[in-house]
């Protein structure tokens, strides 16, 4: 399709979003990611039946944890789209990049020594 999406999005492919666990999302935040998102299949269309529902619950848990720590829960998000929706993929990438820009750099990034 030759659509383009922002180059500061790092894509990590998984066979199903059910493979994404809480620790993966937290580690991304810990290592300084300004935003993390999980893009899974449409609800009800998961090839492994409920993987995307598990991912949704885990994203909600991480949002709650971040809120407790005083970090904006909007930095973590779950999206659902079909594998055939190329333009939607690009649209989501742009949306999250814009969101990260609006929220500013992650407060978790270690301040470099002066």
């Amino acid at each position, binding site marked *: 399709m030759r659509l383009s999406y922002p180059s500061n999005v790092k894509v990590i492919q998984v066979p199903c979003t059910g493979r994404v666990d809480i620790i993966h999302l*937290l580690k991304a935040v*810990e290592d300084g990611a300004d935003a993390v998102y999980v893009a899974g299949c449409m609800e009800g269309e998961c090839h492994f039946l409920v993987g995307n529902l598990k991912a949704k619950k885990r994203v909600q848990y991480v949002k709650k*944890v971040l809120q*407790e720590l*005083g970090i904006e829960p909007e930095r973590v998000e779950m999206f659902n789209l079909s594998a055939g929706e190329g333009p939607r993929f690009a649209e989501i990438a742009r949306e999250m990049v814009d969101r990260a820009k609006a929220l500013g750099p992650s407060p*978790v990034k*270690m*301040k470099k020594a002066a």
Partner: protein
Amino acid sequence: MIIADRKPAGELLEMVKDCNRILILGCKGCVTVCNVGGTKEVGVLASILKIARNKEGRPLQVDEKTIERQCDPEYIAQVKDLVGQYDAVISMACGVGPQFLSEAYPDQRFFPALNTTSFGGALQHGIWSERCAGCGTCLIHHFDGMCPIARCSKSLLHGPCGGSARGKCEISKEVDCIWDMIVKKKMEKGRLEDLTKMKPNKDWRTARDGGPRKSVREELVQ
């Protein structure tokens, strides 16, 4: 199993606020079964604490280890050479863990990561419910397999109170009235007269009321 919930992150951060290096010690027993203190949860807590401390600009080194159980001296002994290397150790076991560790290693500080609540079992994956109050004199055979000590909010032994309504306890719609369930089952099985039989008063000395308890298997003690 013993059921517990993780303490809020803020409370744990307060406990370790003067530390630079800590160890989180998990347990593969009950707390793994109720998904609150096993290897996975140790990893999640380590990440949470590191995120919070990085945000403050005061990084925290957090090491992780999970042992078989923290309620047996032979397993506590396995971490002898490890625990001294840290400013403090967070134990992610039930209330027994931090205590056994503190007794075995009096020079180190051990903090509890969990609020231990009750003895119980899983209703479904992710939901655990209290079933046993550890009263020391089990009476569930009198109540068709249900325990009013643990499951009645007032631990009544003779029947439901006036607050029992539509099968629910007056304290919350989410709590079943166990006496409603006991009476219904007795009626169903034709054993309702059991509840009218006189029984001696419950001996509460075997419960927590009698002080800390100890169980001894003489045939095993060396």
